[in-house]
């Protein structure tokens, strides 16, 4: 980012700089975006992830041109675009509700953008065929959208948005209306489409699983701010703050006091006295209070007589198909989730009422400094 020079970053497909968006009067209105800055690289599958109301859709609509910014700037491959209307921006959108034109055939829908760009007829026909082949809907060209299933409509929406070969494709929760099986299949399909076309995808979702499986990088958003930007591994294994740790996947948050800081590793004192080594998310100072995040799958249950970090009683055992989840109650009344793989550990499962010891896999605890 060249924030100091004011020049747009050349490598970025989309650069969002200090964007603020307030709906309604500037002082009393609803603040949807509170100064968001991010760079989305060319050829990247970038995901905006966050709960509803976090501002992710607003940001997408600003990039598409459907919303104006209250302050801040938006660049597309180095060109400032915040004053351009949507039809002047070389970006296309796949809408959540697809928004296929019901009075046009599938082929006419896909051709719409190409006609508006005044491509010659022969080329339009060729590119409509290509786009429909890309989403494997070639044989449905003459159908009306209403004659297609939800999954097929979704793919037509994709073909329609891809046919004009936009520089950036915006996807606004496009999978949320599909059922689970189809959603999972479409994740793979979307990712391979992005790789095949080389177009930058900006994908908005509230579904962390979707984000983790498809994205090159993810921006986790909350309350109009970017909480963390990173790869799936970054945000899952090295969450920067409590919100990210809690929102991405499941986690156990333990109250601790920092005992000792030793470059790259901190010793944390648990409430019940145990000492735990954790990697800090930022600068940690000895004596301060904080939270340690440990993923349920990084905890191991052992019989009570064996050495362990914590002691507790199994409260509940939940069968999740591939996994078993144990809810273990600690002495102070708080509850901890422990996940074991059902196939491997069936014989080691503990039943409700059993006393257990809890161990932490080394190097997996993270101290959240925020």
């Amino acid at each position, binding site marked *: 980012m060249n924030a100091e020079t004011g020049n747009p970053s050349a490598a970025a497909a989309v650069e969002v700089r200090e964007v603020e968006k307030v709906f309604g009067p500037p002082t009393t209105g609803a603040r949807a975006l509170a100064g968001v800055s991010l760079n989305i690289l060319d050829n990247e599958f970038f995901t905006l992830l966050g709960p509803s109301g976090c501002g992710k859709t607003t940001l997408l609509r600003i990039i598409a041109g459907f919303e104006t910014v209250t302050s801040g700037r938006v660049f597309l491959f180095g060109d400032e675009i915040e004053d351009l209307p949507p039809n002047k921006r070389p970006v296309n959108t796949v809408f959540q509700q697809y928004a296929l034109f019901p009075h046009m055939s599938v082929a006419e829908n896909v051709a719409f953008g190409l006609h508006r760009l005044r491509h010659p007829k022969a080329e339009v026909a060729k590119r409509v065929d290509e786009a429909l082949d890309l989403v494997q809907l070639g044989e449905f060209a003459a159908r009306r959208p209403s004659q297609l299933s939800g999954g097929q409509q979704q793919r037509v929406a994709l073909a329609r*948005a891809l046919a*004009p070969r936009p520089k950036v494709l915006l996807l606004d929760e496009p999978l949320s209306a599909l059922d689970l099986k189809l959603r999972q299949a479409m994740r793979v399909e979307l990712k391979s489409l992005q790789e095949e076309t080389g177009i930058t995808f900006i994908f908005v979702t509230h579904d962390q699983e979707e984000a983790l499986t498809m994205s090159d990088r993810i921006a986790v958003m909350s309350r109009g701010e970017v909480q963390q930007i990173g790869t799936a591994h970054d945000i899952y294994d090295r969450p920067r703050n409590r919100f990210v740790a809690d929102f991405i996947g499941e986690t156990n948050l333990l109250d601790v006091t920092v005992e000792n800081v030793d470059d790259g590793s901190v010793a944390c004192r648990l409430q019940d006295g145990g000492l735990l080594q954790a990697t800090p998310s930022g600068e940690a100072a000895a004596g301060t209070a904080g939270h340690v995040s440990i993923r349920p799958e990084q905890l191991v249950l052992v019989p009570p007589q064996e050495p362990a970090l914590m002691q507790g009683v199994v409260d509940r055992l939940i069968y999740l198909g591939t996994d078993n989840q144990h809810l273990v109650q600690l002495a102070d009344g708080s509850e901890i989730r422990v996940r074991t793989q059902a196939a491997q550990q069936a014989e080691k499962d503990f039943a409700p009422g059993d006393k257990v010891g809890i161990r932490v896999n080394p190097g997996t605890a993270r101290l959240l400094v925020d």
Partner: protein
Amino acid sequence: MSTGIRKPARKIDLRRYPGFVHLAVFCMIILYAPLLIVAVYSFNASTSITLWGGFSLQWYEEVFFGLESAKFKDAAWNSFTIAISAAVVSTCFATSAALGMLRAGEFRGRPVSFALINLPLMVPEIVTAVATLIFFNWINFERGIGTILVAHIVFCIPFAYLPIAARLEGISGIYEQAALDLYATRWEAFRLVLLPLMAPGVLSGFLLAFIISLDDFIITNFVKGAGVETLPTAIFGAVKQGIKPNIMAISTLLLVLSFIFVTLSWLIGRMGTDSGRAAD
């Protein structure tokens, strides 16, 4: 059920209320019996309007080829020209109004505009008629076909507006956004996407405006110039000299036409709403 206690019905069934059937039948008779009698007696072979003398088409023949046929043909010609022109113009106004009300976002005076558009439906027609007449006199506008046309355009707007606005309300703004996103200009987004989607509403509004204009008597009677007649005023003029069966024939023809147009308007207004709204 016989105990008089029953579980709350999922939907209140009006037909269960005591006396519902009787009341309904009574109302239907009051509303439609006169129309039915007129329609039946228009095929009467006798000149009496109360005694049945056998089936005949002579009054229809009289309408088209009789002594008064020239007068009625002139009136019909006036009526249709006015109705078509008034419907076309008022539909354009109503479409613009609907777009402004429903697509221009919130603006100051929107509730007032809404009231103003629909007010003519509430104002007694005789008041509008007198006011229009005074207005034309005041600006020294010579009365004739022109004044009728202007008056009809004005009072047809709310009738055209209702089905158009109802249709437009059901069309999600997402289609226009998708069109803009796909490089359409605002005009192209309207012409290629929104207008085809709202077309049934527009057509429905047009038909309604047409039939309202065709049927209008009170306002027309006030603002028409001397010697200019539309079908309703011509019929009224003829009735003043005594009711003849040929009036019944003309009335029946008008009735059939109205029936066709209102039905068409209703059917077209419903057209495509299943697919159109499901996709929202």
